[in-house]
């Protein structure tokens, strides 16, 4: 018996080849085991259980057609083949779409039904699939997915590789890298599942399940790979549907279902691999020799009985002699000035991915939706109406455009919602954060719609008063409320929230001295476990005790309040709601320990417009109910939506100055705007439009190979990367970046204008 085994890589993220060989040697001492590899740098080729080696040139050099013929010949001559590499298994499935009696790998039809992330074939198993989204969706939608899942998301490639993307810029960088490495734009984002990893390994021949075993990871490498584990039988409630799945797929070969078990005992399926896992010999040690079962199933040859040496296994590091006929190759020279030797994928797997794509573009593509998205963001009608109201012949670009209809609609909507949520016991009002955009038109809209003015400095207070707010409609918070000196209103303000205990003590002193007056005096709290520089920290019992003591000193005739702000778009929407609940628990403790009733709650900050305006109102209604239940003394909730009001209320118009086409199909278009007008470019995507110079039509801009370079002579001045300008775009064309009315506008700076 001759068995070819591939996938002999033995680095930190090992392939299963050596484990398969060890297991086969244990079961079939006289078998001829041939190691197949595509680089002599792969250390597994030196494992002495291998009788022979079949070392091929790396995939980037290999002629797949002639190599395929040689593989066919080896199989025709009776050799069995167990693949230890996903991509090689795919190539073999493509080469033998209907299988080969000696190829112990799954057929093409089966592989197509286990593609990530849906793993459609596993629908009968007692598992769930973590939420995901294809990166073919617009950046706008992808950002929404990240927010929805609290930025605990992974960007995953079609075969290997996954990158945590906790921020928008890290996502953009990872997407570019994975797209380049794996030669495909079809990646997907998947929500992280917290829990313990476990796997089920199986062996099957022509749809008959020969064996399966469960493994829980007990030690993991920094990459999250198995270092030690325990082995157990697969429970029948999993085994029965697994047997059906294997039969439906007519599966042949090894396989692995990688899963996470969460705290509620729910299993989440991350992926199914078309091969044995790298820990395959760990199961053999526990008496479950699945490679042997596979060979037995295919040939009828009887293996030596498996002996269980224990139910747990671990890895150790072993040094083995290098084969004399395969001396170690030299280390590549580090790139000049670079660190390391740049040795990833020595067998050229990424080249195989590229070749497979070229030969068969549909082979195992990530297809997560039947009707693929067009990658274009939806543009609200009010945006179009507002933009169409401008005579661009008169607009000197770059220019911020006030979106009148959009802004009016947003403020009215917020006011209506606040009215609906109010009850006889609790009034819900909105607060407009002046710093988000101090444009007088927006402040006036806030005033007209019953908002309070939320200010962080006395200059902002002056601005609010100038526009028409009364002092008793002003809420002052932040660490610099006293700046600049001399501008503190003598009239009574609505609320004054202190950012530290020292700030609270200063406030009490100033109130006693008649230097300021506020109907409510309160504190901003910084809930633990969230990085923030604002508010009074609660992360130690000592600071909590000091806070309690300070609040007790508040004059009895001053109403008490609590202020809680955290950018929901940065931490994620459900995480924000958790923090909200956490904040209420802290408030309840503060009430209990101080004897002071909280009468006003000011909450919000940093809401992404879609999350605020489009979100199911029942969440807000539920929140009001929770406040009433936990803090019955609260009379007013000030809801501060932050940039949700300002961000959609302005757009930035710019013109293309020049278009440069490069040999690699990439395009650089220079525009007259810059990151000086779009400082938030790195933090969230903007919906972009081109105004067609011939028809005047507003055309949404999707993903492509064009980088929009700002006008500044600064290396990082790229206002949009990887976009697709519509056909016919040329110098002089007008582009409009929507969603620029928040911190883009208020934090824009004068630069490069002489």
């Amino acid at each position, binding site marked *: 018996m001759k068995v070819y085994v591939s996938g002999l890589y033995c680095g930190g993220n090992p392939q299963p080849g050596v484990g398969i060989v060890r297991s086969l040697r244990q079961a079939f001492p006289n078998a001829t085991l041939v190691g197949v590899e595509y680089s002599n740098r792969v250390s597994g080729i030196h494992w002495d259980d291998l009788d022979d080696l079949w070392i091929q040139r790396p995939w980037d050099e290999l002629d797949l057609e002639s190599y395929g013929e040689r593989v066919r010949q080896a199989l025709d001559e009776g050799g069995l083949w167990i693949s230890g590499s996903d991509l090689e298994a795919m190539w073999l499935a493509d080469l033998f779409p209907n299988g080969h009696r000696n190829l112990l790998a799954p057929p093409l039809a089966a592989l197509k039904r286990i593609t990530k992330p849906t793993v459609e074939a596993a629908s009968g198993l007692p598992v769930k699939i973590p939420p995901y989204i294809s990166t073919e969706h617009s950046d706008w939608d992808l950002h929404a997915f990240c927010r929805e899942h*609290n930025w605990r998301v992974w960007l995953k490639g079609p075969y290997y590789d996954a990158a945590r993307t906790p921020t928008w810029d890290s996502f953009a960088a990872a997407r570019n890298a994975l797209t380049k490495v794996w030669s495909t734009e079809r990646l997907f984002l998947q929500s992280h599942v*917290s829990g313990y990893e476990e796997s089920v390994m199986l062996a099957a021949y022509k749809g008959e399940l020969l064996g399966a075993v469960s493994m829980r990871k*007990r030690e993991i490498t920094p990459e999250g790979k198995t270092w030690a584990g*325990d082995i157990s039988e697969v429970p029948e409630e999993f085994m029965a549907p697994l047997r059906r799945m294997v039969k439906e797929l007519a599966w042949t070969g090894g396989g692995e279902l990688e899963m996470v078990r*969460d*705290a*509620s*005992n729910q299993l989440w399926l991350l992926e199914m691999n078309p091969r044995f896992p790298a820990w395959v010999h760990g199961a053999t040690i526990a008496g479950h020799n699945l490679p042997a079962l596979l060979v037995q199933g295919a040939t009828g040859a009887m293996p030596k009985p498996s002996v269980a040496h224990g*139910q*747990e296994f671990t890895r150790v590091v072993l040094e083995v002699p290098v084969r004399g006929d395969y001396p170690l190759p030299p280390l590549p020279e580090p790139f000049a000035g670079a660190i390391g030797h740049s040795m990833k994928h020595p067998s050229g797997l990424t080249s195989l991915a590229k070749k497979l794509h070229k030969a068969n573009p549909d082979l195992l593509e990530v297809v997560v939706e039947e009707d693929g998205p067009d990658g274009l963001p939806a543009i609200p009608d009010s945006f179009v109406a507002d933009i169409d109201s401008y005579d661009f012949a008169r607009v000197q670009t770059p220019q911020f455009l006030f979106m009148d209809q959009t802004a009016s609609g947003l403020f009215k909507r917020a006011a209506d919602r606040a009215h609906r949520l109010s009850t006889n016991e609790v009034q819900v009002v909105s607060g407009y954060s002046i710093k988000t955009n101090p444009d007088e038109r927006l402040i006036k809209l806030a005033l007209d719609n019953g908002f309070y003015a939320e200010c962080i400095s006395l200059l902002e207070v002056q601005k609010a008063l100038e526009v028409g707010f009364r002092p008793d409609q002003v809420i002052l918070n932040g660490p610099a409320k006293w700046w600049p000196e001399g501008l503190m209103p003598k009239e009574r303000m609505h609320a004054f929230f202190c950012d530290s205990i020292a700030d609270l003590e200063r406030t009490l002193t100033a109130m006693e001295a008649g230097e300021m007056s506020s109907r409510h005096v309160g504190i901003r709290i910084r*809930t*633990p*476990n969230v990085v923030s520089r604002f508010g009074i920290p*609660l*992360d130690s*019992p*000592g600071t*909590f*005790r000091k806070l*309690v003591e300070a609040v007790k000193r508040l004059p009895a005739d001053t109403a008490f309040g609590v202020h809680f702000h955290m950018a929901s778009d940065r931490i994620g929407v*459900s*995480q924000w709601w*958790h*923090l909200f*609940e*956490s904040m209420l*628990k*802290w408030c309840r*403790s503060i009430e*209990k*320990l101080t004897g002071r009733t909280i009468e006003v709650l000011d909450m919000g900050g940093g809401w992404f417009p879609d999350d605020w305006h489009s979100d199911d109102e029942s969440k807000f209604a539920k929140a009001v109910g929770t406040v009433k239940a936990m803090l019955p003394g609260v009379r007013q909730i000030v809801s501060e939506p932050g940039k949700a009001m300002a961000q959609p209320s302005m757009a930035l118009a710019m013109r293309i100055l020049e278009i440069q086409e490069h040999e690699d199909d990439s395009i650089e278009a220079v525009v007259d705007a810059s990151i000086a007008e779009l400082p938030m470019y790195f933090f969230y995507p903007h919906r972009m439009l081109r105004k067609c110079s011939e028809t005047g039509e507003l055309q949404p801009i999707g993903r492509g190979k064009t980088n929009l370079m700002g006008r500044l002579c600064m290396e990082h001045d790229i206002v949009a990367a990887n976009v697709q300008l519509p056909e016919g775009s040329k110098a002089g064309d007008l582009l409009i970046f929507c969603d620029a009315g928040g911190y883009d506008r208020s934090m824009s700076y004068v630069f490069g204008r002489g």
Partner: protein
Amino acid sequence: MYLAAAELRLDLLEREDSLPLASERWQHFPYSCFSHHEAACCEVAREWIIANDFAQLNGGDLKTGPRWLRQKYEWGPSSWPMHWCDVVERDVIDCGAHAALAHEAFAARGVTAFRAQFVQKYSADATVQWRKKWGDEEVSDHWLTDDAIYHEGNALLVGDDEVKLWDASAGWWINARQAGGGYGSLVAVRIFADGQWGGGDGFRWGDHRIKPNQWHQL
């Protein structure tokens, strides 16, 4: 390690006919409880533990182990009695204090949890080290025998009658496979439960069925 009075309840059984069960030494030993000054100092501390535990959940499942407690408080010798206002200020607390804090956290979350006592097997070398460490701090080392130790933790109800055992001072769930023998293994467990949980067939933990309020040998 625990209430000084409790040490008087240690059962030092001498048997000639057979080796005593490891747990017999702690047959009548109560689990650890904090004292309360009935004043604001202790109430502030207790409220802080409860509110901070919820904050540390980070939006995760309510049945997630409160590992932050182990991160904040190292495991080591503690003198008893211990008041709430005292424990939160310490850097190092023993397993009884850890388990008491964890129980408070679980209860405040609204999940069903029980106090648990463990006997674990280690080695003579390990107990010699611990005995020295506890001695250096002038804290009782009654929790140590030759190669077995008394330990405290929690049992969290995760199904109709299934529990997971939380080792609060390690910050992990005890593996049901790691029972009965070997270094670090659990050799006996006692779960304190009353009311509807105080009778019946007891709790299921892995392949074991554990009757409440009595030592169960594994």
